[in-house]
């Protein structure tokens, strides 16, 4: 019974942690991409002849901005399915 309580507590807080990791990461990534793309649209409207080059750079920067978020998702998945914090409970 004691073990079950400890297990439940660890799982609960891990669940909250996973939500925060993915949620805050997504918020940061989406806001960043939104700002970048709004500048791209503005720049494309001012100088349409540069649009192809700028578009290539947009995709490059998209991947760079997404990096931390995706690393966070990977870590969150680790906690969801192979939670190392559970090792502290014996048995």
């Amino acid at each position, binding site marked *: 019974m004691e073990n079950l309580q400890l297990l439940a507590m660890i799982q609960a807080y891990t669940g909250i942690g996973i939500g925060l990791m993915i949620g805050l990461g997504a918020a940061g990534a989406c806001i960043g991409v939104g700002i970048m793309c709004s500048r791209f649209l503005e720049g494309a409207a001012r100088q349409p002849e540069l649009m192809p080059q700028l578009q290539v750079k947009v*995709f490059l920067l998209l991947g760079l901005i997404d990096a931390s978020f*995706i*690393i966070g998702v*990977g870590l969150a*998945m680790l906690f969801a399915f192979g939670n190392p914090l559970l090792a502290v409970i014996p048995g």
Partner: protein
Amino acid sequence: MAAEQELTPTGYITHHLTFNAERIGGEAAGGFWTLHVDTLVTSVILGALSLGVLWWIARGATSGVPNRRQAFAELAFDFIDEQVKSIFTHGNRHPFIAPVALTVFVWVLMMNAMDFLPLDWVAGALRLIGLHEWRLVPTADVNTTFALALSVWLLMIYFSVKVKGLGGWIHELFCAPFGSNPLAWPANLLFNLVEYVSKPLSHSLRLYGNMYAGEIIFILLWIWAATSLTGTAFATLLGVGWAIFHILIVVLQAFIFMMLTVVYLAMAHEHH
């Protein structure tokens, strides 16, 4: 499914994310000499195949009217050359930098593209030849991406030393970006160390995270599809959406990996 693993979601996921690991030397699980056989074999086969095809096409290349194979290879070559030309302005890019970019792009693209093959079908086919665990996507293994990123990192250091000399490089470690006042040496060193550590880390983990998270989300969607009828309906919808998005991610991450390789190598050629 293998009989020794019960069919729970966690069991299914753990089975699909376990490497076919082979221990040579050392008995400890996860010791330094544990080889991930599936990653090694898949990446070597893909590399030999894709780069071998390019080499074979280049061998039969003519400067007259190209046939379709050669036109395709020239497409890839021109695309990479355009990108490298705009970034690497420190001399002749053709002996080394552009070939490295082409190799990295084609190889990482092929390894990422293994994610398009349906996992359960391939696993079924592989089980016929006796392999019960085989992870298809080499770049979903952190070892592969770190191997690539650390190779680029070593090349970065090599080119830095080659262009600036060993003394020049050490001088730059201590004196850029804040100037050569001895009081600024610790700050300079700290900045440069952070830069040298964060570059390979982000380079590798970006690619690894994208591929690994992609796989996990596919697996989770399939588990959801197996639970109920509504689950199947929704999971199919979301699965199609995610699969289309993932096609973009596969190509984009290979492109980003290549661009960053060229950018890092170009930055290594710079003098401060």
